[in-house]
C-alpha cells in the first residue's frame, strides 16, 4: 500500500488549473488550421485566424485564453493501492483550485447558490470532482475548466430505442443548430449514449477529454462521429455563428450499456477553448 499525503495533491491541481487555462492543446490548433484551409467564408477565415493568434498570445503573455476560466471540473483516477493520509482529499483538490485561480489571475465564476443569493464564492471553489477507483498505486488527475456559454447549450434527452441511430443523429445535430453562435463555435460536441439519465451526461463530458487528433477507436463509431460532424458543418453556422463551414472541430461519442426500456442521449457542447490538462502522482 502506497502512502500519499493529500497535501501533495494541492500544487499539482494548482498547476493544472493554470496550465489548462493558458495553454491550449496542440490538437485544437491542428484542427483549426486544417479547417482554415477548407473554409469558404472570408469572415470565418478571419475569425479562425484571430483564434489562432489568441492561443499564441495567451501562452506568450501567460494569460487565460478566455476570460471565462470556467468551473474547475476535476477527474481523478485513484489507484486502489494508494492510501491517502494527512487530511481531506476533496479539500486538497479545492485548495489546489483556490491557489491556481488566485495565483494564475483566473476569473472566479462560481456562485454559492444557484437561485436565491447567487453570491460569488470568490475563489472558484467548489470544484466539481469525479473520482474513479482503478487498479494500481498512482493517481491521475485531469483538470478540465468548463465555460458557461457552451455548457448552457447542453442537453440530456431520454429517447426511445425505436428512435434508433437516425433519431440520435437528428437530436445531436438539432441541438447544435439551436445553439447557433451562442457556445462560441467552432465547438467540440461530446455525446454520451446509454447508461441512465446522469451517466449519459457524464459520458458526454468525459468524451470531451479525448484528443481531437485521435479518432474513435471503434471504426463503426468513428464512422458515425464523422457522419454527425459533416451534418453539423453543413448547417452553415460557422465560427462564432457568423456563417461558414467550420461549426464543429470534432464529435466524440462514449457509450455504455443501458436498461431495456431506455436510450438516454446527452450532448455536452464544448467551445473552441477545449481545455484540459492531466498529471500523474
Amino acid at each position, binding site marked *: 500500500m502506497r502512502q500519499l499525503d493529500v497535501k501533495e495533491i494541492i500544487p499539482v491541481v494548482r498547476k493544472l488549473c493554470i496550465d489548462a487555462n493558458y495553454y491550449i492543446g496542440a490538437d485544437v490548433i491542428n484542427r483549426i488550421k486544417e479547417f482554415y484551409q477548407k473554409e469558404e467564408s472570408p469572415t470565418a477565415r478571419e475569425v479562425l485566424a484571430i483564434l489562432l493568434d489568441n492561443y499564441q498570445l495567451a501562452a506568450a503573455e501567460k*494569460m487565460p485564453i478566455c476570460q471565462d476560466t470556467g468551473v474547475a471540473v476535476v477527474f481523478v483516477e485513484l489507484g486502489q493501492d494508494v492510501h491517502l493520509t494527512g487530511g481531506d482529499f476533496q479539500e486538497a483538490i479545492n485548495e489546489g483550485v483556490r491557489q491556481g485561480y488566485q495565483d494564475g489571475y483566473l476569473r472566479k465564476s462560481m456562485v454559492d447558490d444557484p437561485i436565491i443569493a447567487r453570491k460569488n464564492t470568490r475563489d472558484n471553489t467548489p470544484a466539481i470532482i469525479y473520482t474513479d477507483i482503478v487498479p494500481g498505486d498512482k493517481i491521475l488527475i485531469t483538470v478540465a475548466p468548463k465555460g458557461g456559454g457552451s455548457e448552457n447549450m447542453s442537453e440530456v434527452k431520454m429517447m426511445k430505442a425505436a428512435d434508433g441511430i437516425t433519431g440520435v443523429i437528428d437530436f445531436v445535430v438539432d441541438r447544435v443548430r439551436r445553439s447557433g453562435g451562442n457556445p462560441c463555435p467552432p465547438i467540440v460536441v461530446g455525446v454520451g449514449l446509454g447508461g441512465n439519465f446522469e451517466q449519459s451526461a457524464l459520458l458526454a463530458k468525459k468524451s470531451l477529454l479525448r484528443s481531437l487528433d485521435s479518432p474513435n477507436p471503434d471504426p463503426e463509431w468513428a464512422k458515425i462521429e464523422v457522419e454527425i460532424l459533416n451534418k453539423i458543418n*453543413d448547417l452553415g453556422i460557422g465560427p462564432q455563428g457568423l*456563417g461558414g463551414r467550420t461549426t464543429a472541430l470534432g464529435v466524440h461519442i462514449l457509450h455504455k450499456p443501458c436498461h431495456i426500456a431506455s436510450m438516454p442521449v446527452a450532448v455536452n457542447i464544448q467551445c473552441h477553448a477545449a481545455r484540459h490538462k492531466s498529471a500523474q502522482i
Partner: protein
Amino acid sequence: MPKTVKLQTPLSDADVSVLEIGDTVLITGTIYTGRDAAHKRLVELLEAGRELPFDIKGQVIYYVGPAPAPPGKPIGSAGPTTSYRMDPYAPVLLDAGLKCMVGKGPRGPEVIKSMIKNKAVYLVAIGGAAVVVAKSIKKAEVIAYEDLGTEAIRKLEVEDFPCIVANDISGKDIYQEGVKRYKK
C-alpha cells in the same frame, strides 16, 4: 462589400447609421462593461426613476466579466460573454439612450425591434479571443457595484477595440444572413 469603420465614443446617430452587418468596427474612447447582475441593477434603477451610475446617452456597453489583471496590465483576459442573457434588459437601456451593445451570439426579436426604434447597433467581439481583446483595453476602473466582483461595472478606455457588426439600425442580422449563405 464589408468595410472597416473607426468610431470614437460617445456615438451619434450619424456614427451608427453608416454601419452594415459584416463591417469591422474599431472603437476608441470610453466604453462601459456590464453583464447579468449589473444589468438587473441598472434596469431596477431606471424603473424606480433613479439616476444611473454613468451617462448612458450615446454609450457602448460591452458584455464582459474580465479575468483579474495580472501585475503590470490594466485588465486580464476580456472576451465577450453570450448576449441573449441580457435580452430582457436591453430594450429598457436602449430607450434610455444606449447606442451600442457589444457581446457574442444572436439577439432576440424584441431587442432587434428596439434597436430599429432607437437607432442603435449590436456588435460582436470574437468569443474566446480574450487576450486579443484585452490588448485593446488601455485602462480599466470599477465605477459601480464592486460587490459583484467580475460582474461590476467598469469604465474602459479602449483603442481600436475590434468588433464585427451583427445587427445594424435597419434590423438586418448577420446570424440569419451568414448562416443562410453557407447552409447546405
